[in-house]
């Protein structure tokens, strides 16, 4: 990043950022383990419908496909923001972070619609073991995405007020790891929850 004037950092700072990156990576790995446990719980519970709705009755493939498209596109637009960051284009970073935010917000909007629709038709988390596991797993992912949305807003504030300084760029990269990581979790969710559910 030394190509961008205001992003030069001392070796001591570089070491600090490296430690932070590693620490954040360890957090992501432990988060992956948490999701793995929720996936295991879901797979054990998916057959326990207690006479209530089965996956086939409550999952909408169209909605899952739309959610998938929004999240995948938001990962790509974040990449566009990252490229803008490396060329030091502050306006473009803000623009593409805003686009990423809107795509992520669209995802959350669809998911909230899905959850409220299911609860309205009596398929809430209290109905059966399957639905408890479903809401816990997909809800935990949705909560992570919501936190990511808040983080994107904070990031936009920092880029706007502080500019593309080395600490801001370092935080931006960790936000990127978080955002792309959530997209990976979603790939597992549609492969384990939605697609087998409608088959």
């Amino acid at each position: 990043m030394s190509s961008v004037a205001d992003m030069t950092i001392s070796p001591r700072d570089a070491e600090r950022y490296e430690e932070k990156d590693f620490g954040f990576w360890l957090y992501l790995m432990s988060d992956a383990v948490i999701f793995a446990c929720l996936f295991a719980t879901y797979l054990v519970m998916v057959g326990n419908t207690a006479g209530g709705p089965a996956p086939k009755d409550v999952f909408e493939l169209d909605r899952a496909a739309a959610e998938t498209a929004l999240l995948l596109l938001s990962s790509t637009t974040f990449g566009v923001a990252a490229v803008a960051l490396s060329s030091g284009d502050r306006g473009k970073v803000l623009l593409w972070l805003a686009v990423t935010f809107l795509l992520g917000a669209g995802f959350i909007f669809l998911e909230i619609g899905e959850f409220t629709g299911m609860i309205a038709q009596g398929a809430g988390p209290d109905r059966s073991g399957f639905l408890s596991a479903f809401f816990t797993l997909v809800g935990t992912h949705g909560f992570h995405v919501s936190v990511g949305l808040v983080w994107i807003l904070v990031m936009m504030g920092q880029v706007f007020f502080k500019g593309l300084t080395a600490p801001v760029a370092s935080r931006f990269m960790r936000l990127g790891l978080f955002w792309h990581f959530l997209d990976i979790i979603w790939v597992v969710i549609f492969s384990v929850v939605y697609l087998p559910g409608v088959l």
Partner: protein
Amino acid sequence: METKSGLQIERTIRPYLVGLALAVVLTAIPFGLAATGALPRETTLIIIAALAVVQILVHLAFFLHIDFKTTPRENLVALAFALVLIFIMVGGSLWIMFDLYHRMMV
């Protein structure tokens, strides 16, 4: 490209577009199979699982920029350790619970 902090910053959009194109294909195939039900259920499930693994690798490579050259070694070790933990916990849980399930059915 590598920053001094060890994290990579991409200077070109190319890896993201390659990643997007691969991810679209790897997503469209399982969704298409699930929507049409063209293949038997078992076969479809195996294809979905296999494509999910490939897509995770695509995301790791093109979006998270994990590779064996520039990614710090300790990050790769942490990733490998997490995979071992996940394998033991998911595999072990399913093994125990479904074994229990079958014994209860007798």
